[in-house]
C-alpha cells in the first residue's frame, strides 16, 4: 500500500476539530451533471475547506487479447467532494457533491438511501444532463429539490416551463440559486429541509 509516514499527515486545522459531543451525523447529497456547480455549492456552505474522498474499482478485462492466462485489469477512480456544517454541539451535517454518472453510484454504499435527501443542481443551458439523475432518485425513492444554478449567460426560463421540461410533480420544490453564495446555498438546503418536513406529515 502506498502510504505516507503518519507524521506527514495533516488532519483538520485546530479550529476545525469537532467537540467530543459531535457524534450524530446526517448527510445530504448534491448531485448534478458535469460542471453544474456541485463543488462550488459544497464549498460555499461548508465550515471546512472541501475535502475529497475516493473509491477505486478494479474490473477484470474481458477477452481483450488472445494471450491466454494474461488477465487485464482496469482501475476506475471515482472522487467525491464533501463539506461539513456543525448544526449544534451534537449534530453534524455532511454534504456530498456527487457526479451524475449513475453507473458509479453503487460504489458509495448507502450514499443516497441513507441521505436525508438530495439537491439536484441544474444548468438551464444543459437541462438534459440532469434527466437521468432525477430519474434515478425517483426510482430510489429519495426525496429531492431542484436548484437552478444561475449562470450569467444562461437563458432564463420561468420555473413552470422548467418544471414541465423536467416533468416534476407540483410538490417538488424548485429554487433559483447562486452556488457561489453561502446564503443562497443555505436557502437551498432550507428548502430541502422544509420539503422533507412537509413529507413527514402523514397524508390522511
Amino acid at each position, binding site marked *: 500500500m502506498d502510504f505516507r509516514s503518519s507524521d506527514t499527515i495533516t488532519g483538520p486545522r485546530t479550529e476545525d476539530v469537532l467537540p467530543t459531543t*459531535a457524534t450524530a451525523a*446526517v448527510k445530504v447529497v448534491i448531485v448534478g451533471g458535469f460542471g453544474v456547480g456541485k463543488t462550488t455549492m459544497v464549498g460555499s456552505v461548508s465550515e471546512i475547506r472541501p475535502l475529497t474522498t475516493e473509491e477505486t474499482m478494479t474490473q477484470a478485462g474481458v477477452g481483450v487479447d488472445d494471450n491466454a492466462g494474461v488477465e487485464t485489469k482496469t482501475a476506475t477512480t471515482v472522487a467525491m467532494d464533501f463539506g461539513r456544517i456543525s448544526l449544534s454541539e451534537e449534530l453534524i451535517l455532511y454534504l456530498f457533491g456527487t457526479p451524475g454518472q449513475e453507473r458509479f453510484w453503487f460504489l458509495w454504499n448507502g450514499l443516497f438511501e441513507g441521505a436525508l435527501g438530495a439537491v439536484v443542481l441544474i444548468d438551464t443551458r444543459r437541462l438534459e444532463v440532469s434527466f437521468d439523475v432525477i430519474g434515478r432518485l425517483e426510482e430510489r425513492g429519495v426525496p429531492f429539490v431542484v436548484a437552478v444554478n444561475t449562470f450569467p449567460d444562461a437563458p432564463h426560463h420561468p420555473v413552470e416551463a422548467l418544471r414541465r421540461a423536467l416533468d416534476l410533480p407540483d410538490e417538488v420544490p424548485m429554487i433559483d440559486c447562486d452556488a457561489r453564495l453561502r446564503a443562497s446555498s443555505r436557502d437551498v438546503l*432550507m428548502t430541502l429541509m422544509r420539503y422533507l418536513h412537509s413529507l413527514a406529515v402523514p397524508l390522511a
Partner: protein
Amino acid sequence: MSGPRRERRKTDPALSDPERLYVITGDLDDSERAALDLVTMVVAQAEPSPTFQPEQAAILRLCQAPLSVAEISAYLSLPFSVVTSLLSDLLATELIESRAPIVRATLPDRSLLEAVMHGLQKL
C-alpha cells in the same frame, strides 16, 4: 420553452427498500465492514503508539476528536474501502468506537429536521 423533455419515473420497490441499506459493498461476508457509512463518526479509544502500523497510528491520531469515515479517507488520501477495512480491524480490537449516522427513515423524523433547520438558520 422547447427542447428535450424528461419523463417521470416510478419508485422501484427493489431499489428503495430500506432493508437494502448497507448490504451492497464488495465484501458481503464481512458485516462489520459493510456497516461503515461515509458519515459514521469515529472516536479513538487509545493513544497512538509506535507499536501500531503506520495507518492505524495515523487513524488513532486523527480520531482523538470525533471524525467521519469520509474525513479520515480524505486526510489519509486512502480510498473509502481501504479505510473501512482498517477501521474494521480497529473496531474489532476496540481501539476505536463508532457511531452510525442518522439515516432517512421511512417516516422522516420531524424533530431531527427541525434541529437541522435551526442549525442552518445560524449560518
